Structures are given as C-alpha cells and as structure tokens.
C-alpha cells in the first residue's frame, strides 16, 4: 500500500502543478471565442472579439508601438550583447569583473527600480518620454540576457579555429564574420528572440517610461483590465500568448541546435 502511494504520488503531483499553470490560460483562450460577453458560460463560437480588436484604434496604435519598440530593442541589444559576449570571451581587460557584475544588476534588481531610475534620468536630462525611452529601457534589461545566451554558446566553441584563420592572414573583422559569427549564430538568434519577447511582454519598466502617446500592448491591457473583464481582453491576451509561445519555441530550437 505504502509503496503504491509512493509510486502514484509523483505523477499526480506533477499533473496538478501543470494543471495549476495551464488551466487558467486555457480557460482564458477558450472564452476569447465565446459569443457571450460575460466570460462565464459557453454560448457559441465566434471570432467577433478578434474583429472588434482590429477595429479598436487604441489597440492598433499600441500594437504598432509595441512592435516598433520590440524590433529596435532586439537590434540594439543583440548587437551590443553579442559584441560583449565575444569581447568578454576573447580578451582579458581591466574592469572585466566590474562589467560582469554590472550586467547582473538589471537581472536581479526589481524591475520597478530600473523603471523609476530611468524615469528620473530622462526627466533630469530633458528627454521626453516616448518610444525612444521605452527602447532604451528595454535594451538595458535585454542586453544582459543576450550576453548570457551568446556566452553559453561560445563556451563550446574551439578558439583554435579563430587562430587558424588569423594565422592564414584573415584580419580580426574577417575572422569574426566568417568563423566566429557562424559558430555562435544559434546563440545570437536565441538571444534576439528572447529580447523580442522580453520587450513585448514588459509591464513594470514600461509603466514608468512610456509617454502618454506611446502606450504598449501590456500597458493597454493593464488599463483595460482595471475597467473589468471583457472578451476583447481575452482575445488580445490570446494573441499575445500565442506570439510569446511561438517565440519561446523558436528560441528553444536555436538554443539546442
């Protein structure tokens, strides 16, 4: 009897944890296709809420802002993050430890601290809040994640290849483009996808550095949820969930490549 509970307990416990994580999300998605406005009983299938969403100017504007910010953030943090990872892997330099610690700060401090720190900074430097302040804030917390992702990729990379290329007369730049980059590319792509998602999903930091005309989708959802539950929010949430899910799966694929 005892050994039987011992055998059954682990799978049951794990199942319950997965149910806890996924049932609320599934219900949210299901009700985004429900005819009734009330989000409680199933009355029939519809795509109306998605249609309504497409006609909601505020949502569309927030979508455009979000995509712009996410793309710019991805480019900035991927370029800077990849260069950093390569530099830190290849060279010894003064202040390496300082840099290493500096890069951990955005990952461990509460997001709200970064949000208000940048709010004060933009205020004192007279930079008006808008898309650029969002891009700066997002890049600041994305760069460290790119560095880590690319660095872990570099760990398995044979330095001798680079040396061989240079011995054969290739310059540092050529070596980077033809030898280093192709080797670490999966890590770079995984880092880029992660940056894109982090930027797309950010609530707290954005809350402080977004201007009145630069609302992003998560901020839009936040203000909509304050007014109550509606199937339109379900539809918007579903779209965001699916986007993040796709990006996450893609990134996992590149990471294990």
């Amino acid at each position: 009897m005892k050994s039987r509970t011992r055998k059954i307990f682990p799978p049951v416990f794990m199942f319950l944890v997965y149910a806890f994580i996924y049932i609320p999300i599934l219900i949210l998605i299901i009700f985004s296709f429900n005819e009734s406005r009330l989000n409680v009983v199933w009355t029939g299938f519809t795509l109306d809420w998605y249609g309504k969403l497409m006609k909601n100017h505020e949502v569309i504007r927030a979508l455009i802002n979000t995509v712009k910010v996410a793309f710019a953030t991805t480019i900035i943090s991927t370029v800077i993050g990849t260069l950093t990872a390569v530099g830190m892997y290849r060279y010894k330099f003064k202040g390496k430890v300082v840099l290493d610690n500096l890069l951990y700060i955005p990952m461990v401090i509460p997001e709200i601290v970064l949000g208000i720190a940048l709010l004060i900074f933009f205020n004192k430097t007279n930079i008006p809040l808008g898309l650029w302040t969002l891009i700066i804030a997002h890049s600041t917390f994305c760069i460290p994640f790119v560095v880590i992702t690319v660095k872990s990729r570099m760990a398995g990379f044979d330095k001798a290849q680079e040396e061989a290329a240079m011995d054969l007369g290739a310059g540092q730049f050529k070596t980077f483009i033809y030898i280093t980059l192709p080797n670490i590319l999966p890590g770079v792509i995984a880092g880029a996808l992660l940056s894109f998602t982090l930027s797309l999903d950010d609530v707290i930091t954005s809350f402080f550095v977004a201007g009145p005309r630069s609302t992003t989708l998560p901020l839009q959802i936040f203000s909509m949820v304050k007014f109550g539950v509606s199937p339109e929010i379900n539809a918007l949430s579903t779209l965001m969930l699916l986007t993040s899910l796709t990006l996450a799966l893609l990134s996992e694929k590149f990471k294990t490549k």
Partner: protein
Amino acid sequence: MDNVVEQKKMKNTMKKRTRQSIFITIGPVYTWMTLFLTVPLLLIVVISFMQRGLYGGIVYEPTIKNYVALIDPMYMKVFGTSLIIAIGTTILCLLIAYPFSYFLVKVSNKYRNILMLLIIIPFWTNSLVRVYAWIVLLRSEGVINTILLNVKFIDEPIKMLYSYGAIFLGMIYTLLPFMILPLYSSIEKLDVALLEAADDLGASTWQTFRHVTLPLTIPGIIAGSLLVFIPSLGYFFIPDLMGGGKHMIIGNLIKNQFLTARNWPFGSALALILILITLGFVMIYLKLVGGDKDDMGVM
C-alpha cells in the same frame, strides 16, 4: 638584431589591434550601461537625500527626512504586508517547486524535455495576461463561482478576489517558474553516486534527503528564493488587480510616490531600500555558492 626589432614591432601592432578590438566589443556595452544603468541608479541615491518641492519638484537641499519618514506606522504596515507576501510566496513556491523539480529530474529523458519546455513557456509569457486569467476565474461573476452556483454547491458567490489569498495566488502563479528552473538545475547536477552511497550505508530516504540531497541543493534553493522574493516586492500590478488596491506592497507605494503623490525623493528612498535588500540577498547567495553567478540556472 633586426629580427628582434621586427618581432617587437609586430608584438606592438598586435597589442594595438587587441586594444582596438576590446574597444569595439566592450566599448558599447560599457557606455550603454554607465549611461542608462549606473547613472540612473546613482540618481536614485542622490535624490533620496533631497527634499520635495512645493509642487512636486525636487529641492536640492540634503536631508535624511525621507528615511526618517519610513518609521511612520503607515509605511511600516506596507513593509509588513510586503514582507509577509514576499516571504509567504517564497516559501509556498519552494514547497511546490522542490518536490516538483525532484520528480521532474527522475522522469525519463523522452518526456523530460517536453515537460521542461512546459515550465519554460510561462517564463516567456506576459505576467499581466496570466494574472488576468485568474481574474476571469475568481471574480464573483467568474467561472468558479458560476460553476459552484450551478451545481448548487453554494447559494451565493464566494468572494475570492480582492483578498490576501488572491494576492498570494497571483504572486505564486507568476513566480513559480522562477523557483523551478534553478532548483531543477541544481537537483539535476546531484551526483547519483553520493545518493547511492548513502543508501548503501543504510541511510533511510529521509536521512539521505536531509544529509545529502538538501545540503547539496542549497544553491538552487537560494537562487530560486532570490528570483521569487525580490520581484515579489515590486510587482505592484498584482495587489492592484487581484487585491483590489486594498493591500499595498512596497511596489505600490513607490509607484504612488512617482505618479500620484509626486514625492520623488521619498519614492527614491523606498527604491534604495529595495536595492539594499536585493544586494543583501545577492551577497548571501554569493557567499554560500562561492561566486558562480551563472549557476542560477535561469538561462
């Protein structure tokens, strides 16, 4: 003789090139992080010692008033609530995540990757959306109440939202993956030989766990606790949406100082306290784990 000079010359150009490469690769990140991280954080420190102007501006006269004000019972209550929620969330996450990770490690390779992926996915999805999902379930006219009413299990809706419990639920739901990932990676690294040795020497399951498994997974436990405890102090939208604004945590207080009360110096003082709590936690982690921050297992 010529050869030596030539070699020296070459060495010099190499050095120069290396310096150039370091400048190109490391220069941008240094500039970026100094400008947009170090300077803003230092601004928080400076402003926390300044005074609030009449209309919400900052008056640059040094004072420790903002820190003295923290002793006010009203703020103490907020700290108390924050700590209860943060500690409670951390412990509950640990109690769920530890056995979960322990079981997950033992699942056969075939299923483990997909099961692991299912834990990573929430990590990638918007926390606000996931909190909203619970609001759909919990509100008075929500899914759970309607089902219970329909099966005549209850006569009137249970008030589940806007309570301490709802805040806890929101926090645990949002932060659980952050506890699982480092725990999983530290349990996975356990040397099976050690466990077998304990078993061979006659230790009971509990003894093995208590004297071998638990001490060896302390880094994972602390990393997970760090990743749950710290953010839970700042997630203002969870008490806002699931607590109905009745219970305030430090995050809400900071948000109010910056957006409604417009008392930036006091808000900065609060933020500095969050920074110090974080630093303290990281120091404990580094002291116990011995400096390997990459071990946190998040990525």
